[in-house]
């Protein structure tokens, strides 16, 4: 194991903003942020559909606002194998619905409430994610 590209300060700052969004949504709207829940309910349920739409719109506006105010480019690199992306997308979509949450819903909102169910879910997807990357790097 080698440690590389370590950026704990920006990660902590960004994480704190994510926590702030979770707090505001909870205290004002009485709901927990779980992106897979918000996104799938936007698709599948009439309840709070416009709220969910506005949240998702904000999620997309966030990086744009960051770019405008900081005048910094946002660099990301994603696999360009479309088949792999489609398989991964299906797995993430189905998996988060079957398991009832994703990195935000279980990993932050759930663990923040000390929910054992969310702790188990987070440990599970972390371990499987780590194993998947490990296997992928072997091939």
């Amino acid at each position, binding site marked *: 194991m080698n440690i590389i590209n370590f950026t704990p300060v920006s990660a902590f700052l960004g994480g704190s903003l994510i926590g*702030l969004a979770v707090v505001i949504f909870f205290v004002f709207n009485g709901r927990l942020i779980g992106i897979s829940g918000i996104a799938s309910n936007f698709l599948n349920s009439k309840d709070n559909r416009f709220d969910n739409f506005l949240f998702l719109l904000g999620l997309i506006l966030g990086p744009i606002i960051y770019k405008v105010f900081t005048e910094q480019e946002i660099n990301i690199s994603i696999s360009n194998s*479309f088949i792999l992306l489609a398989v991964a997308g*299906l797995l993430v979509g*189905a998996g988060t619905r079957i398991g009832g949450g994703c990195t935000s819903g279980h990993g932050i909102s759930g663990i923040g409430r000390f929910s054992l169910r969310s702790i188990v879910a987070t440990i599970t997807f972390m371990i499987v994610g780590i194993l998947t990357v490990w296997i992928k790097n072997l091939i």
Partner: protein
Amino acid sequence: MDKKFNMSKIVSLICGIIFGIGLTISQMIDPAKVLGFLNIFGDWDPSLAFVMIGALIISSPFFHLFKNNKKPIFADSFSYSNNKELNKKLIIGSSLFGAGWGLAGLCPGPAIASLALFNTSSIIFVITMFVGFYLVKLSDLTTQAR
């Protein structure tokens, strides 16, 4: 009632924006960063653990302060799942999610936020993710109908 109704919409938009900026600053929006975090057995980038630590330090105290019989400011009641079940579905679903996360380096929040960058990869991932949401909804409906 009406005022509350409209204010909750503004809060939703603002929370989405703050969340999206948080994903950008932390670089969680970058799948390469996520894959580096999951690559414990290779060149490991532990940064994203600090995203979780930051988010939990800020949010956790408020859950505990507000959970008992207080009303949210712009809604009539708190509404969230308080499911405590530990079952096969939780493990299977979380495993499938973990596999997809490890394959592409994208989970739902960063995937949707990265639509801001207009790249085809994000669009393909998000569309198929929504197909996944829909398929589970369909199969739920069929099981309920039986």
